[in-house]
Each structure stands twice: as structure tokens, then as C-alpha cells.
């Protein structure tokens, strides 16, 4: 990859319903020298589009390169500035030789499906698993990792304990706003944000909708274009195209209001279990329902009922 255009081409070539990775070559120096690695995410809040996890790594001795690239608090950087820094990471020889990166694009379908599992899988778990697999892949690539810095929105202690258990030989720091403290996390954050921005730009609707990001906006629920999209692009039966995270309350509430009601199987094992042996007094006075003779268990289990015969 040598330009944002090449990144877009790559993102376009992937199936946007599934998760996939995008990464740099591993700089050979990262295999010999002790490295640090930063982890950050982008697109956690939006109701549209993928969430992207990014990692960036470089030798401990090459921290100054990150500063010269301009990796600082990525939230303080404009979109253009982030694109510029990412482009430098792709083309400047000094960066290519020292700084490696990798991103995982987590599709909105995967996010909805995870949150709507029988055994619910929270966004925090999805995030943590992505971070762990990215770190593992970098290690498997032969990178000599000594230190890991992770930005988190959740409670850092639990996250840190989990990572330390999986990667016992690496010094791990999980912190809120790590993005603004550690340049390597800023670099990871730029990888994630730039990938997310461009993934939305090249989004191709499997449903055949002829629309792009200039019409559906940034994906944040507060964005007027996104609001309009969520309000208007509703299919009565199916709800939304795969760009939308169905499990977001913004989307859920809108579908409740505007689309056909859909009820999935109740997974609560005992929804209306009444305390055994306590019949309400009124049941003794109500007329006995003679018609509802219980069917044999064979039929009950199979949901088979008597119906009218046709002629």
C-alpha cells in the first residue's frame, strides 16, 4: 500500500459484511530490537459502519520518528491531518523501516450479530478480542514486543489483568486517553480512524442502494445526515441495510416505531415461572375450561395442533 487510494482500493475489494485485516509489512528491525506497540479503536459510537481496531509498533529506540510524523492526540487532529500522517506512514522510508501497523475492520453485521447472540457478546468483549488477536498476530509475525500501551473507554484494571494473563512477558499499560499520552497509541489511533473513515467512503451496499457517505454522513447518531438515513432508509420487513448496527438503540427504537414488529424466540428459560403451589384464590371460582384438553407430549413437543381439514 503506498497511498490512501491504494487503501481505498483494498477496502473496496473486501466483503464489507465480514471482518478483515489490513496491514503493513513488518519492518525487519522490529524483529530484532525490542518494540513497543499501541492499541486504539475508532468508530465505537456510530450507528453506521464498521468499528476499526488498530495497532502500531516500532522499536523502543525510535520513538522520535513517531513525533516527527506528528502522532499526537488524534482527536485533536483534523481528518485531513490524520490522512496526511497515515500517508507518511505509507511512503516515508524512515517510517516504513521502523513503524509497522495493522488494523481489523469489524463489520457492522458482526457487531449486531454479536450483540444479538443467544449468549450476548458485548461490544467490550468484541473489542478486547480484536485487540488480543491483533497483538497475537504481530507476535506471530516475529515482532519482538516488550511494551504494550492500550487506550480504553472501559475500566482499565480488568482489561490490564486480562492482557497481562495472556501476554505475561510483556509490560502492559492500559489507560484512559492513552491516545493523548503515548505517541505509539496515537499512531494506532490514526491507523484505526483513517481506516474507518475510508471504509465508510467506499461503502458498497449489498442491497444495491445507490448512496454514499455524502448522503448518510459520519454515522454518529447526532449527525443530521445519519439521522435522516436512519429515519428514512427502512425496509418494512428487513429493517436496514447491513451498514447499520441493528443493536444500537437509535436503530432499534426507529424500527420499533416504523417497521414490522419482529419477535424472536424468547431465550429466557423461565419467563413466567410462578411460585409453585400458590394458586390465586380467584382460580377456584373461575369456570373450568373443559375444551382445552392437553395433547400428548409427542404433539406438544413438536408444536403440532389439530386444525380444520380442507375439502
Amino acid at each position, binding site marked *: 500500500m503506498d497511498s490512501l487510494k491504494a487503501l481505498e482500493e483494498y477496502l473496496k475489494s473486501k466483503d464489507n459484511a465480514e471482518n478483515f485485516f489490513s496491514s503493513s509489512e513488518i519492518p525487519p528491525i522490529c524483529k530484532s530490537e525490542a518494540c513497543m506497540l499501541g492499541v486504539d479503536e475508532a468508530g465505537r459510537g456510530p450507528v453506521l459502519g464498521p468499528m476499526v481496531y488498530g495497532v502500531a509498533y516500532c522499536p523502543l529506540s525510535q520513538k522520535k520518528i513517531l513525533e516527527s510524523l506528528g502522532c499526537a492526540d488524534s482527536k485533536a487532529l483534523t481528518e485531513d491531518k490524520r490522512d496526511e500522517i497515515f500517508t507518511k506512514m505509507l511512503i516515508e522510508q524512515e517510517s516504513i523501516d521502523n513503524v509497522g501497523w495493522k488494523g481489523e475492520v469489524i463489520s457492522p453485521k458482526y457487531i449486531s450479530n454479536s450483540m444479538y447472540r443467544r449468549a450476548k457478546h458485548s461490544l467490550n468483549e468484541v473489542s478486547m478480542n480484536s485487540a488480543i488477536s491483533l497483538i497475537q498476530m504481530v507476535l506471530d509475525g516475529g515482532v519482538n514486543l516488550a511494551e504494550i500501551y492500550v487506550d480504553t473507554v472501559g475500566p482499565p484494571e480488568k482489561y490490564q489483568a486480562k492482557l497481562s494473563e495472556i501476554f505475561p512477558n510483556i509490560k502492559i499499560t492500559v489507560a484512559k486517553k492513552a491516545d493523548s499520552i503515548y505517541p505509539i497509541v496515537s499512531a494506532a489511533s490514526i491507523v484505526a480512524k483513517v481506516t474507518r473513515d475510508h471504509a465508510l467512503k467506499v461503502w458498497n451496499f449489498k442491497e444495491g442502494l445507490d448512496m454514499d457517505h455524502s448522503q448518510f454522513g459520519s454515522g454518529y447518531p447526532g449527525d443530521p445526515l445519519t439521522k435522516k438515513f436512519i429515519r428514512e432508509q427502512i425496509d418494512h420487513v428487513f429493517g436496514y441495510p447491513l451498514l447499520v448496527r441493528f443493536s444500537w438503540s437509535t436503530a432499534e427504537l426507529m424500527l420499533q416505531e416504523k417497521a414490522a414488529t*419482529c419477535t424472536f424466540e424468547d431465550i429466557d428459560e423461565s419467563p413466567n415461572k410462578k411460585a409453585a403451589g400458590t394458586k390465586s384464590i380467584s382460580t377456584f371460582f373461575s369456570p373450568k375450561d373443559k375444551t382445552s384438553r392437553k395433547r400428548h407430549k409427542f404433539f406438544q413437543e*413438536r408444536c403440532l395442533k389439530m386444525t380444520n381439514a380442507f375439502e
Partner: protein
Amino acid sequence: MSIQVENNLKDSDNSEQLQQKTHYVPCKIESDGNANVEKYFEPYITEKENGELTGTFRGHHLDGVKMRLPDGYRAVLVTEAKKPLAEDADRRFQIAGGFKEFVYWNWDKKPSKNDNIVKGFEWMDIADAYLGGIVSFGSISVELSWFTYTVTGGGGVTWNYRNQSPPKCSKTP
């Protein structure tokens, strides 16, 4: 009350109508009418080498498998052009379509022989052996709904027993 079913699709021209693509979705959809299955459902289906299917509906992961109705059976979709006012009046339905194969979907659970629909099919064999004749087979599960995409719903899905004419079958409530 008697129920009559008219089969206007007997001629060979209509064989396609009786071979609809059908999906059995683990969700009660409170809607009756056309559905954009081609746009919002079929593009999402992936098939593994072992024949396992995955799909997604309203953000829910689905596991699916292709199924055929037991030999000698086919499913028919009936519509009712005019609904009678009286509850116990005679009723007339018209066959609008049908199918022999369908895709059975479970929500986040691999289809298996423990699924109600597979177990329900057991009744057909048992009834066949036991009653040795005409069998009524009702709705499999009220929690589940069918949709096909060229046929407008309006009636329930019915199962009919061997191509008798007029068919002897039963109707979902």
C-alpha cells in the same frame, strides 16, 4: 364449517409457482405482503463446503440448512379472496404458490434433528403407518413464520398429502 381449496395452478405453465424459493425464519414477523428477500436477505447468505448456511435477519445471526419436505408431500400457500363475515361460514381458499424445498433457519444455533420441524416430520411417517391414509398436518409452530417473495401472503402455509385433487390438507390458523 367447511373449507374448500381451489387449485388454479394445475396447468404446467404454473409449475414455477409451485416451486418457490422459501425461507423458514425463526422469528414472528407481523407483516403480510411482499418482502424484498432478493435485496435484503439473499445477498447475505454464505454457504460452507459442508452445506451449512449462514445468514442474518434484523441483526440476528442465522444458521441454516436446505431441507426437502418428506416424500409425497408438498407445501401450498393459499390465499382467501373474500373473507366471510360470519365466524362459522364456509370458506374458500385459492392456491397461490407452493414449494417442496426450503431453507430452514435457526437463530444462532446449528440446525439439528432436535429442531421442532424435523421432529414434526416424524409425525408424517408415524401417521402414515398408523392411519395409512389421509393425514392432516397442521402448523408446525406458531412462533415461526414463512415468507416467499413472489407470493403475497394472506393465508397460511398448508401441507397437502399426495397430489389429490382437490387436495386434502389442513390449514394453519
